[in-house]
């Protein structure tokens, strides 16, 4: 792909992340993926919540909505239902999506809306200066957990699998080329797609660093993984330790919500006309 294509998605605003932050890799990956799919920026809506990671829409040239902490998914859902022609991508953090936003995350997956959700998973609350996040491993010490976390971390991949997501994947900020392919597949996938990204917070997480991940990362497609097997996917979602898989865990086809909704059979909502103001039609039932 030519750099000029990626430049299409270059915003005038420069990212303000800490030097080395994993989120740079995600931004690069998303640009590249959009370039691969050659989507016109006007047809992309990037929605986010609040967090370092949620600042991403400001650094990407497309339409965007930088909403409230934890509420990106419902905003994106509403936008997608209103204009199903848009490519709706949600970008955010683990706190935003797996913490405060967890309920929305699970519910959107059972709906199978055609939305791509990219979570920059760094195990901490970066923007609020480093408290524990739901993916932090047991024992992790932060400002808000000085004795070490005593909760089990969320397993977002497993959660997505049992919640009905039709595309479940993982990427790593240290490998934006691989990530771009995963994101491109996710966007292309008709239905809800999750891309959980190991995106190191170089400032507040000294455990889950690039150095931690790099030797452990193993690509699913290089290990003969069957992306159509839910069972295999669940099993692999628990792999942690010496080998941590990235790539596509699971992909299946199920009609999207947009395809099944009766009203959307007549095309995107915003292209549909208001109802005719005919008393015969509108008032009869009240006689």
């Amino acid at each position, binding site marked *: 792909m030519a750099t000029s294509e990626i430049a299409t998605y270059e915003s005038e*605003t420069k990212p303000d992340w800490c030097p080395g932050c994993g989120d740079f890799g995600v931004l690069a990956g998303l640009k590249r993926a959009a370039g691969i799919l050659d989507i016109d920026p006007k047809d992309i809506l990037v929605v986010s919540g609040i967090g370092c990671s949620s600042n991403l829409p400001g650094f990407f040239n497309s339409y965007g909505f930088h909403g409230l902490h934890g*509420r990106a998914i419902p905003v994106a859902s509403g936008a997608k239902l209103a204009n199903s022609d848009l490519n709706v991508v949600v970008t955010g953090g683990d706190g935003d999506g797996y913490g405060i936003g967890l309920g929305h995350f699970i519910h959107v997956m059972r709906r199978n809306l055609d939305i791509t959700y990219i979570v920059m998973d760094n195990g901490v609350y970066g923007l609020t200066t480093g408290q524990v996040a739901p993916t932090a491993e047991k024992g992790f010490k932060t400002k808000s957990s000085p004795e070490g976390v005593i909760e089990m971390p969320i397993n977002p991949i497993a959660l997505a699998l049992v919640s009905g997501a039709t595309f479940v994947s993982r990427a790593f900020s240290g490998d934006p080329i691989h990530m771009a392919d995963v994101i491109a597949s996710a966007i292309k996938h008709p239905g809800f797609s999750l891309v959980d990204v190991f995106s190191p917070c170089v400032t507040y997480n000294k455990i889950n660093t690039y150095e931690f991940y790099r030797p452990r990362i193993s690509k699913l497609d290089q290990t003969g993984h069957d992306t159509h097997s839910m069972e295999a996917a669940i099993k692999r979602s628990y792999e942690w330790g010496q080998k941590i898989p990235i790539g596509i865990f699971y992909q299946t086809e199920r009609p999207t919500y947009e395809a099944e909704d009766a009203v959307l059979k007549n095309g995107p909502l915003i292209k549909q006309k208001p109802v005719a103001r005919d008393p015969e039609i509108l008032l009869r039932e009240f006689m």
Partner: protein
Amino acid sequence: MPTENEVIVRVGGAAGEGGASTGESIAKLFSRHGLHTITYTSYQSAIRGGHNWIQIRGSPEKVYSQGDGLDLLLVLSSETADIHYSKISPGGVILYNNEKIKNGENLVRQDVKQLGIPATEMGRKYGNLPIQNTILVGALTHLLGMKLDTLVSVIETIFGKKKSDIFKFNVEAAQEGYNYSQQNFQPLGKRMNYTFTPKLLMTGNNALALGAVTAGCKFYSAYPMTPASTILHWMAAHSTKYSVLVKQGEDELAVVNMAIGAAHAGARAMCATSGGGFALMSEAIGQAGMTETPVVIVESQRSGPATGLPTKTEQGDLLQMLGAGQSDYPKIILAPRTVEECFYTANEAFNLADKYQCPVIIASDLYLSEHFETVDSLNLDSVPIDRGLLFDGNGDGRDYKRYQFTESGISPRAIPGQPDHMFVAPTDEHDENGVSISDVLCGIPKYVEIRARMMEKRMKKMEIAMQDMKAPSLEGAKDAELTLVGWGSTQGPIKDAVLALEQEGILVNSAQFKYLWPFPAEKCEQVLSQCKKLLLVEGNYSGQFGLLLAALTGIRIKEKLLKYDGEPIYPSEIVTKVKQVIGHI
């Protein structure tokens, strides 16, 4: 006590006995006789086990509330008599199934006619069909001198298909009840003219939903919550017919954020809830204010605090609506005063939302949302759709500034998908381009100024919107001794009280507020400054509107009728209070 020119009926029964739907058919019977009709339904949270009742008032003249007194009590279950018998006006009637009140047991009032019908026995031949209600309504039809044919048309509307057994049996039962009544009872002898020109009969929620689809609402999201749920039910039932996408969300946080997302993408979007759900929505309403997204939120209030009495009414959430979400941001609050006005207010709300690119809250309540009222034929065309300042999409997109500083504070809005006008709508403070300034820019002198200007830009819109916010005119006598001040749904009882007092030669008038925020203080001061004495009438404990009025105009109303027991206000309560205040008692 009902006047000669009106009839008030109350139907009571155990929850699950169909009291409400029996009442609704009586209401339809009235409206199809051409009567102005109003109902009030009292019910509880439990699906079974409680006692429900519905009051129906009809008159050839316009009526404004459920009214006072009772001409006829229709008894569906034995406890109904215990609870309501004493409420029957002298000369009134109690109509009951002989088996529910054995031999008219305990019906001892001399000034009330006891009319028993062996409805259970009469109904036996229809097997398990719960048909006693229909028999009783048949009897009532005769008692009110109404037409059986019209009742049959109502039964048809309710049970549908003309040839179904259930339709046929109900018609037969109605006929039998009518005949029994004719043979055994004298009609009530009210002298009412029936025109037989059917009137539109609907609830506030019906009118609001109808108004919304008429306004081009394309996206409706909700999470069930009494008394807003019936909007959801109506919308869902009409979703394909009117092409409105209806989405039940996982909670109110999702619901309001979905509506905002849909609105951002260009669809007219609405959601509705009650107090508790509104509390959850409040953060996102601020988001709509900050991102300048037009969205309509209905808050149908019920008795609080907390879960409170989910099936009872209150006007207790005004402070919550005023204070919704942190800091100051543009928002508009409208409180429709009648069922009819619910229709027009929905239209207006969408236009105001688009015009000022801000959230608009429609403040309803259980009483207004759920009671049936006849409305004069709605003028469907009176409020044309106006989508406000949309960016035309011409010119070079590079100059496009979503949050441009303008004279009015309103900036042209582009819609995602439009070529060349990309922008990010941020909940963080931002510059004209929508670039967030909270991350690395705030605190630097230039951006301190931009922050202040952006705040002023947004709030400027509310100064302009003030032109659209109307003060109520004084309704009633010019030289009244006293002015009743209310807002929203209390208009009905207040109007009826004014009329009743007039009958007694006491001249009062009323100022009923609909436009609550931004509060048109100057105009309101002008109106109220003409008044001799003020009496505040509100359905809450603390007189919340009184606080708003005082805050913005300095007018502190000393005399107050505040009701917070869950029941709607009755005209007679206002009459009593007025007399007390002006020293007539």
